[in-house]
């Protein structure tokens, strides 16, 4: 073998071996390094500085920061992490760079508002973000709807929710349901019908599959809560009339002249505990229920059971553009 060929063989072999070695070692190093150090590093925290550094290409840098915020939230949400320290700063930078980036407000607020591990547990910050978005996009009625949604679902501040819906209803081309929501907030905020109306509107107004699935799960959970409430009232009535706890829901169904034991949206009958509490047979299948769970029950990660129809084929309860 000539000298050049020998050198070529040795150099090629060394290249392959050293590449494999460096990949292997980097993999080992990544396992040792704590991920929080990597994830929680925001090299430039000042929105103004980032804006200046973008050299006039704020739109692109805003898209990059928004993508980073989405990946940050998604990664932590998947790991059921309870801290989202960099989420609010990432969203602040995104919206400073591009105040017209509507998804950053709509989805960003839904990342910030819910309690951990489903969200960052910062509803006040979510509200500030939405108000900033409304200030810069006063003609976008969706933002008013989303802000009212946060007041309703996270803060249970029905008065403020009604005020925001009322503000949004005055926007030109705003959907008529904002007026309806503003009106029902005043008197029927805690009714199941109102909650159903809100989640139906969320389902119909979005084309994102995940959003629609989430709304669908909430609607299923509302149905369960409503069923459990009705059944519990029937059990209480049975106890008052008969002086004892019914042995099963069949007795309650007979007393109420029902065809059979009521079933949950999956067709599984509800159950009755020994102390007369109505329970859902499979609470894990309804991640957002607030009634019918056994004592000490801790919900797992939400799972979507129902695939919603495509947005264009969905049967609209509300005609949303």
């Amino acid at each position, binding site marked *: 073998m000539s000298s050049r060929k020998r050198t070529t063989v040795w150099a090629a072999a060394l290249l392959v071996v050293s590449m494999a070695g460096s990949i292997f070692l980097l993999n080992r190093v990544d396992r040792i390094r704590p991920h929080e150090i990597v994830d929680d590093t925001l090299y430039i925290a000042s929105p103004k500085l980032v804006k200046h550094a973008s050299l006039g290409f704020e739109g692109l840098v805003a*898209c990059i920061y928004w993508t980073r915020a989405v990946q940050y939230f998604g990664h932590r949400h998947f790991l059921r992490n309870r801290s989202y320290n960099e989420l609010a700063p990432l969203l602040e930078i995104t919206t400073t760079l591009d105040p017209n980036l509507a998804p950053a407000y709509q989805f960003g607020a839904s990342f910030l508002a819910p309690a951990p591990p489903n969200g960052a547990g910062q509803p006040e910050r979510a509200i500030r973000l939405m108000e900033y978005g409304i200030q810069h996009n006063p003609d976008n009625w969706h933002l008013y709807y989303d802000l009212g949604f946060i007041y309703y679902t996270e803060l249970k501040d029905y008065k403020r929710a009604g005020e925001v819906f009322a503000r949004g209803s005055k926007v030109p081309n705003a959907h008529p349901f904002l007026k309806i929501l503003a009106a029902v907030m005043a008197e029927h905020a805690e009714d199941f019908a109102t909650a159903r109306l809100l989640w139906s509107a969320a389902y119909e107004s979005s084309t*994102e599959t995940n959003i629609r699935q989430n709304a669908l799960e909430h609607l299923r959970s509302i149905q369960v809560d409503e069923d459990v409430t009705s059944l519990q009232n029937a059990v209480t009535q049975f106890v008052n009339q008969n002086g004892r706890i019914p042995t099963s829901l069949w007795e309650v169904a007979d007393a109420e002249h029902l065809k059979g034991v009521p079933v949950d949206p999956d067709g599984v009958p509800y159950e009755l505990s020994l102390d007369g509490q109505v329970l859902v047979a499979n609470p894990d299948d309804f991640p957002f229920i607030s009634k019918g769970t056994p004592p000490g029950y801790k919900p797992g990660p939400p799972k979507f059971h129902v695939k919603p129809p495509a947005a264009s084929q969905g049967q609209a309860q509300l005609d949303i553009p």
Partner: protein
Amino acid sequence: MNARILYIASNTFREAVRDRVLYNLIAFAVLLSAAAIFIGQISIEIERLVVVNLGLTAVSLFGVVIAIFIGIGLVSKEIEKRTLYTVLSRPVRRWEFIVGKFFGLAGTLVVNTFFMGVGVFAALLYVAHKFSGPDAWILVALYFIVLQFLIICSLALLFSSFSSPLLSAIFAFSLFVIGSFSDDLRGFAYLTRGFAHWIATAAAYMVPNFSVLNVISSVAHQQAISSQLILQNTLYALFYSAMALSGAVLIFERRNLK
């Protein structure tokens, strides 16, 4: 006169398109536009926005790089290869040489922008499945990018007429960066008083204002661009380019080429 300028321009254009670096940069810009499709998929509801922002930014930045790196060598290479003397020994005036070089490079950049723009529209069509009326404003953004290139070309020629290629590149790129901050310069001038105010104001008006020619964010959100802005930006770019070219001609006329 016009024929001589045209010959020099077409020669400059032919020489520029033979440069392999040009094709690599165009290919990379088109690749970035295609990559925008995938970036949109790891985010939420910004597929179209990413394609327009990333695509137009790639067109702008790569075009500036092409303009600077070809422009800085336009005069100095001719001097280095001694082909300039052959050209000037013909009845070609020095100012015709400069103007011809400018038009040749500008033509190259217009063609490059066309191909890169096709890449952006192709990526947009893939993501959005159809074009809508407001997408036409992307053409205005591309037009403004071409106006940026005219200014950069004239500046690159200005520096190339008296400086080495390395220094010309540094000066041209620095002016591009400073020009992107011209709104901040104006703000700084507003805050200062006395001599500093006059210096800052002069600097704010002398550096090219690239921020007014950057409407990428607006067209990404399908916002309309006023016809008044289009007209005034066109005139500004033409006037500024004429100013830089005049400076290049003045320097080059007096330059000792020995």
